């Protein structure tokens, strides 16, 4: 019996009479070209034909930079036209490839399309604003800041789900990390201990997930959902009873310092995001790279992925399936916990109820959009951080797009992604299926 239709070990899809309509042999569909064409047309109409006449001004350098670059000022209408024409050409190329050669467009096409679309969108938004000027450096730096917990959360998701355990509890892990970091850093006056405690707290939430889903074979989605409620209740309860009884003592965590690497941090735009971060920020870059290398370039990673894709085969080869899952889930929790500490040790200087504000679910979305790949998840999280930041900036500068629709964007994009309209994201084959040795 084949496991599922999408299993990669299957080689060729077998013509089972009752196949669910899933993509197995990567047939070239019309979905991607058509989606691109629709988006390009929308861009042409709104960003091009109906584009604002003003000039959009983007500040590039901030005052403390190593060298100053002049602000970029572009005519919104003209650039909207040019960029949307580029989009139309890209979409046309994809359509022609499909129609003539029945081939999918090269991978750079959707990537370039996304970038051009985002740029065109940005120019349109800024050009149509009451004050058509924003600081690009600030926008990007803010996006990275907002993305940090999302990146950690999605890495946690990647670690768990690559091993075959669905992690809906990211939200709970972030929240647990944020709370513990605040409490420990307040009590010890040492933010690094707070960071460590956050990792432990995240791991503890994960251990519950692991024990219930692996030992007691409880459905993983259920455990995840319930854990989110549990952590939310626990932190809320302890916040009211303990933290608020003496906020000075329990809820004024020492902050993690921003480590400024001289010279490099003064490079415009990329300087602040790469070289002017807190420890958590630097850890984020390290974690993305380390987890990517570990998953895809090491023996350990191969085993983890084997467990997530085909546990029976892995078991046959002597890999301890459930032990691997247990440790991966725990590790994932620790990673998410560190991400949670960002809320209380870096971004905001104290804990409040529900401080993670649903970012665990955005992290879940980022992981899916990033196709269960650490680097993909990183860029997806950046995109979501960007949308989040743009949303708040948009409210300030006043644009035609209601900010609520900007806030909605990550979720809509994710729905499109899982529905396969912009290339299907495929989970590991054994994701969510408990393994009972038998």
């Amino acid at each position: 019996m084949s496991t599922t239709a999408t299993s990669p070990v299957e080689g060729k899809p077998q013509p089972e009479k009752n196949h669910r309509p899933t993509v197995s042999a990567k047939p070239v569909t019309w979905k991607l070209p058509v989606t691109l064409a629709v988006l390009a047309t929308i861009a042409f109409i709104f960003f091009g034909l109906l584009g604002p006449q003003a000039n959009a001004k983007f500040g590039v350098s901030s005052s403390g930079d190593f060298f100053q670059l002049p602000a970029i000022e572009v005519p919104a209408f003209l650039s909207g036209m040019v960029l949307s024409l580029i989009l139309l050409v890209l979409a046309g190329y994809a359509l022609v490839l499909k129609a003539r050669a029945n081939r999918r467009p090269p991978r750079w096409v959707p990537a370039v399309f996304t970038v051009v679309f985002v740029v065109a969108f940005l120019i349109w938004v800024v050009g149509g604003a009451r004050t058509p000027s924003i600081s690009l450096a600030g926008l990007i730096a803010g996006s990275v800041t907002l993305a940090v917990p999302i990146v950690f959360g999605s890495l946690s998701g990647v670690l768990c789900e690559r091993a075959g355990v669905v992690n809906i509890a990211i939200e709970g892990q972030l929240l647990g990390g944020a709370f513990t970091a605040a409490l420990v850093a307040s009590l010890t006056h040492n933010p690094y201990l707070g960071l460590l405690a956050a990792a432990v707290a995240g791991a503890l939430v994960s251990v519950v997930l692991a024990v219930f889903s692996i030992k007691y074979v409880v459905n993983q989605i259920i455990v995840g959902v319930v854990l989110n409620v549990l952590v939310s209740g626990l932190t809320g309860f302890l916040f009211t009873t303990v933290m608020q009884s003496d906020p000075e003592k329990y809820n004024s965590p020492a902050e993690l310092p921003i480590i400024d690497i001289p010279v490099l941090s003064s490079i415009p735009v990329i300087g602040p995001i790469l070289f002017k971060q807190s420890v958590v920020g630097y850890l984020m870059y390290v974690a993305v790279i380390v987890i990517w290398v570990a998953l895809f370039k090491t023996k350990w990673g191969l085993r983890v992925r084997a467990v997530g894709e085909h546990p029976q085969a892995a078991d046959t080869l002597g890999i301890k399936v459930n032990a691997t899952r247990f440790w991966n889930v725990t590790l994932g929790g620790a990673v998410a916990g560190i991400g949670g500490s960002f809320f209380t040790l870096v971004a905001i200087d104290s804990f409040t109820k529900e401080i993670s504000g649903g970012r665990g679910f955005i992290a879940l979305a980022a992981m899916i959009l990033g196709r269960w790949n650490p680097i993909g998840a990183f860029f997806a999280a950046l995109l979501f951080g960007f949308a989040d930041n743009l949303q708040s900036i948009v409210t300030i500068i006043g644009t035609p797009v209601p900010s609520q629709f900007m806030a909605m964007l990550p979720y809509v994009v994710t729905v499109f992604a899982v529905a396969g309209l912009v290339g299907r994201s495929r989970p590991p084959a054994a994701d969510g299926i408990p393994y009972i040795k038998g």
Partner: protein
Amino acid sequence: MSENTEPRSAAAPDPDQLPASQATDVEPEPLEDAADFVTSLDTAGGAHQPSAVPVSTQSGALPGAPEEESLLRKIFTGNGIVTILAVLLALILGGLLIAMTDKVVGTTAGYLFARPSDFLIAVWSAATDSYVALFQGAVFNPRGNGVAGQFAPLMETLTIATPLITAGLGVALAFRAGLFNIGAQGQIIMAGILASWVGFALHLPLGIHLLLVLVAGVIGGAVWGGIVGVLKARTGAHEVIVTIMFNYIALYFLRYLLDTDLFQRPGADTPISPIVDPSAAYPLIFGSQYRLHLGFLLAIAATVFVSWLLNRSTLGFEFRAVGANPKAALTAGINVSRATILVMTIAGGLAGLAGVAQVAGTEKVLTDGVAATYGFDAITVALLGRSSPWGTFAAGLLFGAFRAGAVQMQIQTGTPIDIVLVVQSLIVLFIAAPPLVRAIFGLNPRKKKAATAGKTKQAATTGGAA
């Protein structure tokens, strides 16, 4: 027992599609062997996703439990006792948490070894005081003003339970068809939007107006749920992800609408809609002294409807068959896509009923907190109710009581409402893992045979799915 035969016949036409766990169900004997099969092939070594449907509802009593000891064993190890023990355990843990953060307990712990009795009394009184306040706020308040006042808490419990029950039914129904409907929150919001608009923007005669509000709300929820069903059926998109995303999309859409002239109350600075017309509001059942409204009767009706739908109708049979094994259902000639879309639509409609209860009954206005956390609580309600209609009804009442009582508890003893979230989630966690609860209370059946161990394992999966 009448349920038991149907899924088997669904499974029967294609035994080799199924691992023997289903196939053996067809054979009544030999019992011991069958039990062994159930053990080892529960999920075919992980190859098959365990169904989200409680196994107990798929195949009734497990084959292999000898008749004579089943009654006693059922009492001590069955689901009923596990449920009660799980609630008890969760309350104990919650009580310990309350005691841990209590000031008197803190002081007495300082001289714990000198006078341990003080400490224990403090622990006991901290926990019991809170729970007594909870009970008085949820069921019966002896200090109430007359009989009406004494029963006011109970009425409040029923009011709060109303959306929990209907939304919980939506989640439970989807569970039975093997779908995780995390989206009740979004469905309540969409229903609230439509129902409230009809309620305050249209001015219609009594009766027709309320009916239209009801229809609009149910349609709002049904469409929002139905889209998920369509996406799942047509593209295979996982409903958990889609429903989570749809919750947020609905929430931001609601916030956007409350910012527009169409929905915002004229003259108000806050995002709040006009009050719905009196003709669009649910009538109050026991007069104006309680908030209890017609929605509660509709919740009872909805429970009856879901119970009939699942257990007595062809459609419900199809849902359960799809939930038990989609491949087998497809082979048996059931249109799985249609069932998926329909079940999500009906589930959305039920959640929509909760949205209507909020805007036409309890709140009478639309705010961005219209769904509160009812949509998420509905998941725990359905899980606690083991996805059965009346179980969900009972669970809705229990959680409604927790919520109503928690308000009173916070006022009287200062214990934060959040303790209810902790207790609720612990209950569900424990219920999902019966072996854990039994182990804690030392009730684990003797592991004399593989069959018994198998039963435990099966129960674990059952609980997990429930």
